[in-house]
């Protein structure tokens, strides 16, 4: 089975080619078949590969398929190949699985769109790129997927390209991602320079001996790669593109900007965990940035009114958790949250998409309300997802998020735990706010409300499947603290990923004993559930009981409210500090340096001087014979005199 792994990315690629080249002529029916079909097939194949891998002994679960020599140049030999191991298999399953559901959902969602074929072409291309990213056998090929998904993100955000705002958002996403990619590239260069290879297996094998533990090289490699990850995964300070990316069609938001692409940074760090373990300082930065992002985004999520923007900030926040997880060296935990988040966040987006679809293109929650009755399935599934994200046991989010917080605590990063803890409460608060504003209360815009209707089945079934997954997916990673009392329920994910991370075990700083006590674990668990409930309670109080209160609070603290509403003015700061100065500098280079300094002072000056002297010389030619004779005579005197002066 394993040798056929190339088919997993190849299928979506084929789908892309078919839809992209012929889609317009094939008609929506065929496209709707091909588009999700190839991803579904890829998913089936991925499952088969998973099973095949499962049959192997744990430590032989690594399959490398070399496809072709891609860039051979001197001592740089880059071979394009696929690497199947437990980690990439998890990612592959998520990408194809969630991807398939979203493809199916999109058939309904995009039905009316004239560029239906184009949408599926992009979506297939995205799936292909994402699979390349997760299956790549080295940094270079990973970068192909890395930028490929970025491209698809760009194309899909600006899918409705006739609106300038969409295109701006797409461009912003691409450019901000490129900033990260820049660091990623430099990191790669440093890896090649230090380790002499970009191949994962070789690089990670060479790293412990070539890179000093905690040394500068390891630190910079890890940090640069992480900056790359902040771009792709919308972490501080490169998070600005993700909220804007909500301009894209909602399935895109679900697939790319929630479930898969944005988690690539987490995957990359997990993949390169060897390097990170060699650079504890960098890993610490990862954790801090993750935690801060989690809190930062959660606070913004409190006041946003656009349903998708709330979800976007929620995504940023949840990604922060994942980074916090990997940042405290709990790589499997980060991946765990990645998986559960993929389910529930995709679900939330799809649900939101249904809401938007139902109220044609209305995303402002202030104009919603009371939709529970109109969209019961949507409401039900979204409710599950909201509970999950809030961390209510035994839903998936509880297990994964709590494990991250525990890992942070266990690693002795108590401050980070506190931040994560607060963010957890805020998460529950803003998610329930969303839920209440959307589905409860009186319809605030009657005209829209009347228009609302349940969409077709193709959009309903993926919701239900995802809701189920959101609920139960946590059980694959039940922490031992819970699993052991329940009769030694195994932490399946942990065990599955164990071979991947085991090799790096010796690099891990030993966990301090006193923080790792079981009692503490239970206590913290309880605390986080409590804070989630508190959040829910507050939300209920503010948005069900006293709906007028939020506005009053906002009026009481106008500065704080405004700060949150304007997203801490990050966009404005970037505009003032980066974008506008940059454009001004560009204009300066053009108008001043190019046109005045180089062309004017040098080129035109030379031309001008030539012209000037040309006229001078010509004017000396007066037409008077005696002047000519005088010049002649002076010439004679000078020539003779020259010998005297010599």
């Amino acid at each position, binding site marked *: 089975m394993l040798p056929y792994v190339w088919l997993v990315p190849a299928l979506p690629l084929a789908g892309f080619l078919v839809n992209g080249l012929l889609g317009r002529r094939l008609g929506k029916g065929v496209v709707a078949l091909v588009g999700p079909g190839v991803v579904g097939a890829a998913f089936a194949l991925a499952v088969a590969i998973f099973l095949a891998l499962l049959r192997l002994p744990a430590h032989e679960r690594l399959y490398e398929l070399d496809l072709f020599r891609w860039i051979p140049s001197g001592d740089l030999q880059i071979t394009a190949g696929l690497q199947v191991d437990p980690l990439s298999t998890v990612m592959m399953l998520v990408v194809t699985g969630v991807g398939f559901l979203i493809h199916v959902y999109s058939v309904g969602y995009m039905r009316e769109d004239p560029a239906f074929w184009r949408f599926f072409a992009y979506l297939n291309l995205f799936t292909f790129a994402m699979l390349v990213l997760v299956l790549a056998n080295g940094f270079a090929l990973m970068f192909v997927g890395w930028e490929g998904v970025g491209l698809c993100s760009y194309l899909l955000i600006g899918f409705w390209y006739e609106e300038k705002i969409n295109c701006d958002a797409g461009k912003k996403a691409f450019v901000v991602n490129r900033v990260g990619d820049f660091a990623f590239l430099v990191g790669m260069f440093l890896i090649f320079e230090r380790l002499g290879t970009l191949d994962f297996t070789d690089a990670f094998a060479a790293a412990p001996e070539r890179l000093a533990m905690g040394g500068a090289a390891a630190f910079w490699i890890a940090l640069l790669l992480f900056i790359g990850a902040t771009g792709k995964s919308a972490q501080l300070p490169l998070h600005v593109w993700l909220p804007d990316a909500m301009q894209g069609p909602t399935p895109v938001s679900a697939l790319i900007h929630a479930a898969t692409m944005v988690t690539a940074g987490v995957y990359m760090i997990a993949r390169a965990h060897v390097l990170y373990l060699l650079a504890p300082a960098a890993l610490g930065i990862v954790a801090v940035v993750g935690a801060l992002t989690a809190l930062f985004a959660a606070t913004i999520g409190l006041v946003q009114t656009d349903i998708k923007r709330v979800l976007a900030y929620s995504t940023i926040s949840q990604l922060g958790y994942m980074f916090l997880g990997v940042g405290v060296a709990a790589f499997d935990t980060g991946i765990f949250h990645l998986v559960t988040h993929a389910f529930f966040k995709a679900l939330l987006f799809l649900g939101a998409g249904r809401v938007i679809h139902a109220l044609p293109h209305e995303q402002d929650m202030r104009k919603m309300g009371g939709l529970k009755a109109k969209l019961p399935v949507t409401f039900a599934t979204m409710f599950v997802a909201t509970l999950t994200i809030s961390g209510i046991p035994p839903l998936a989010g509880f297990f994964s998020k709590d494990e991250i917080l525990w890992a942070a605590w266990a690693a002795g990063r108590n401050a980070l735990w506190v931040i994560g803890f607060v963010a957890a409460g805020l998460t529950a608060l803003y998610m329930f706010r969303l839920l209440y504003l959307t589905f409860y209360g009186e319809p605030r815009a009657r005209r829209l409300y009347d228009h609302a209707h349940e969409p077709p089945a193709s959009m309903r079934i993926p919701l239900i499947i995802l809701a189920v997954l959101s609920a139960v997916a946590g059980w694959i990673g039940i922490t031992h603290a819970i699993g052991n009392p329940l009769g030694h329920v195994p932490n399946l994910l942990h065990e599955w990923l164990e071979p991947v991370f085991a090799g790096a075990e010796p690099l891990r700083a030993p966990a301090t004993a006193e923080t790792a006590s079981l009692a503490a674990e239970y206590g913290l668990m309880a605390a986080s559930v409590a804070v989630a409930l508190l959040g829910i309670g507050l939300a209920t109080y503010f948005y069900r009981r006293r709906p007028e209160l939020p506005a009053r609070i906002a009026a009481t603290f106008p500065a704080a409210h405004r700060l949150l509403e304007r997203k801490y003015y990050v966009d404005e700061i970037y505009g003032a500090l980066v974008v506008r100065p940059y454009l001004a500098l560009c204009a300066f280079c053009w108008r001043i340096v190019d046109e005045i300094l180089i062309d004017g002072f040098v080129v035109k000056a030379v031309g001008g001087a030539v012209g000037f002297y040309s006229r001078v010389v010509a004017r000396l030619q007066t037409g008077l014979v005696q002047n000519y004779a*005088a010049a002649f*005579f*002076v010439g*004679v*005197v000078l020539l*003779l*005199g020259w*010998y*005297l002066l010599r």
Partner: protein
Amino acid sequence: MSVAEAIFYLLGGLAIGSAVLAISAPNPVASLLFVVLAFFALAGLFVTLDAHFLAAIQILVYAGAILVLFLFVIMLLNLGSALPREWLAPPPVLILATAAGAAFLLVLFFVGYRGLSVAAPLPGALPAAAPAVSGTTEAVGLALFRDFLLPFEVTSLLLLVAMVGAVVLAKRER
């Protein structure tokens, strides 16, 4: 001062004086006559140098034929008086021109006669052993027809060209 020297200075002074007057006389006819005078002085100097044939030629051909041609033209064009606006060039031009002329003499002297070195002997001492030559008609004629045969023939072409040229230029337009 020997007689020879006296004659030299007399004739030399006459030549320079009449040349200066020639280039400063406003009237072309006067100018021309001063040039004739200068040429006579030169002919005298030729004699002092034993160039008898040339002295004759100088008077017969140069002064007698060529300068008379000038006179014809002056008369023909009725230019027997000064140009309306001219006597001599304006003073600045005059001063500059004189300065340039003086500079020319200076550099010529230093470069040519003194050979960039004050210690160098003057060319007057150069042909110490040179035999005295006498520019008699016979000697010059022999040189012309033997050593300088080709140049002599070329002058025939030259004169023909000049003749044809003068005709072409000066004849009235059709």
